[in-house]
């Protein structure tokens, strides 16, 4: 912990955590003015992990660009791949085969389950709840195994291609999905008993870090954190893409079960519920994979996109992820712009941290599921 502070006057002190600190969910700096141990004002400085990704995409050819796209959100890489593919397919007017769409959907829902499990593990670690985090990490490995079986990699799969996916469904994949979803349903009940019904865990999160729907809306919050505050916005429902319109699922909202709507506990509960919904979608989707091609066209290394532009939205595990692709028909993109959910979501954090004790801020930060790599890009 790089932990510096100076005394301002009698009881107000200026504290600073980071850039590298295990109590933060990534590499950034958090400065706070604290009165006693209550945070009165918080400031955040990000950008340490800036990697120049958007410029790097402009310099890459269309064929190799997926490598950089994978690194937009390294924790859930398939969503950025999907947004990029949808945008390119719109410009080139490629019809994605139905089979490829369902395969994409299966992998994305799997990615959502994995990312939410990762979130729960991080939240458990932030509350010092090692045992729960170990159980969750055990189940996250099951999801990563499925990824490996299908795409060949655990992270950065580089699997979605323009007009489809890189490979057909692996033998035994569907049986494994059924097996895993059944197991995870049981495990979710276990987490429910371990976390949601645990009074010590509730005390750490309920009534803490309350985010009202108005604040969430005025700061442009999206994703599960916004839904926990009661904002009902889910791209999968509102503008169905990649065949989500064929599946019936519920969008869980924060109810304030143990505290008030939009508190830290709601943000945990909403994500647990979302895992359950994703598992339902998964078990329906693997049973309804249509026959046909998995790839509409093979991308040659000198693939070019005709002049034009497109804008695509997907619902990533953290919120609205959108991609604006502009091409002038050349060998490189003119611009690939990303709207990443975390960079908007982090705007509410200084608001929410007001009035939180110093001991509590890691828990509240963890409850927002921020990906710093996604903010800095």
């Amino acid at each position, binding site marked *: 912990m*790089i932990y510096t502070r100076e005394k301002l006057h009698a009881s107000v002190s200026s504290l600073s955590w980071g850039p590298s600190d295990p109590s933060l969910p990534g590499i950034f700096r958090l400065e706070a003015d604290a009165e006693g141990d209550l945070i009165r004002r918080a400031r955040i400085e990000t950008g340490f992990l800036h990697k120049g990704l958007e410029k*790097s995409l402009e310099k890459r050819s269309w064929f190799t660009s997926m490598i950089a796209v994978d690194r937009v959100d390294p924790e859930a890489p398939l969503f950025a791949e999907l947004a990029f593919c949808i945008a390119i397919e719109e410009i080139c007017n490629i019809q994605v085969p139905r089979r490829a769409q369902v395969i994409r959907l299966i992998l994305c829902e799997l990615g959502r389950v994995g990312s939410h499990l990762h979130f729960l593990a991080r939240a458990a670690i932030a509350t010092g709840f090692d045992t729960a985090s170990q159980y969750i990490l*055990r189940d996250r490995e099951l999801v990563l195994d499925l990824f490996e079986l299908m795409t060949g990699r655990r*992270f950065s799969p580089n699997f979605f291609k323009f007009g489809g996916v890189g490979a057909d469904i692996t033998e035994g994949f569907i049986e494994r999905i059924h097996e895993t979803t059944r197991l995870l349903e049981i495990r979710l009940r276990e987490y429910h008993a371990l976390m949601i019904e645990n009074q010590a865990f509730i005390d750490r999160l309920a009534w803490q870090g309350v985010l009202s729907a108005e604040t969430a809306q005025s700061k442009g919050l999206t994703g599960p954190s916004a839904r926990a505050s009661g904002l009902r916005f889910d791209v999968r429902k509102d503008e169905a893409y990649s065949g989500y319109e064929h599946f019936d699922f519920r969008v869980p909202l924060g109810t304030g079960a143990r505290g008030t709507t939009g508190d830290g506990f709601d943000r945990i509960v909403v994500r647990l519920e979302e895992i359950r919904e994703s598992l339902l979608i998964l078990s329906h989707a693997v049973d309804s994979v249509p026959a046909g091609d998995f790839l509409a066209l093979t991308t040659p290394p000198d693939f070019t996109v005709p002049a034009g532009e497109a804008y695509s939205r997907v619902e990533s595990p953290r919120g609205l992820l959108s991609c604006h692709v502009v091409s002038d028909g050349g060998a490189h993109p003119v611009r690939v712009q990303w709207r990443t959910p975390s960079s908007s979501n982090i705007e509410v954090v200084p608001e929410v941290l007001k009035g939180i004790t110093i001991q509590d801020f890691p828990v509240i930060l963890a409850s927002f599921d921020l990906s710093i790599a996604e903010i800095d890009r």
Partner: protein
Amino acid sequence: MRTFLSAKLGNLAAWAQSSSLWYYTITGGCCADEMLSVQGCRYDLERFGCLPQAHPEQADLLIVSTAVTEQMAKVILDVYDRMPSPKYVMAVGACSNSGGAFNERVSYVKSRPLEQVIPVDVFIPGCPPRPEAIMNGLILLQNKIQERGANENAP
């Protein structure tokens, strides 16, 4: 007799060091996920006596798995300076090994090899490397510490 004893003591210290490498991680990006996997119960780094530490003052091993840009180099150096010696460094992933997908040819942030900032003991390639690779790197580091302890105290 004295040299024999000091050699034995040196060996003991090296053995103790190698079987209790407490680590502090600086991660960002895909390797952060794999580092969490390694901590998790399937791979379980605690088998090797490795425990994650919240403060660099208490760590023996620094695991760096970010792109080493100008800004990150400062952060890494700061953490490295605060670790007490003897300290060891593990560069995990292509970014910290060689600049990876963000080196000076691809991106203007000019990610450098970690070696140019602090001395590195073990390099683990991959983007991101598998947990097994990280564990293998750890075993290599353990062997290296034990060999070094045996050689330094030889008469």
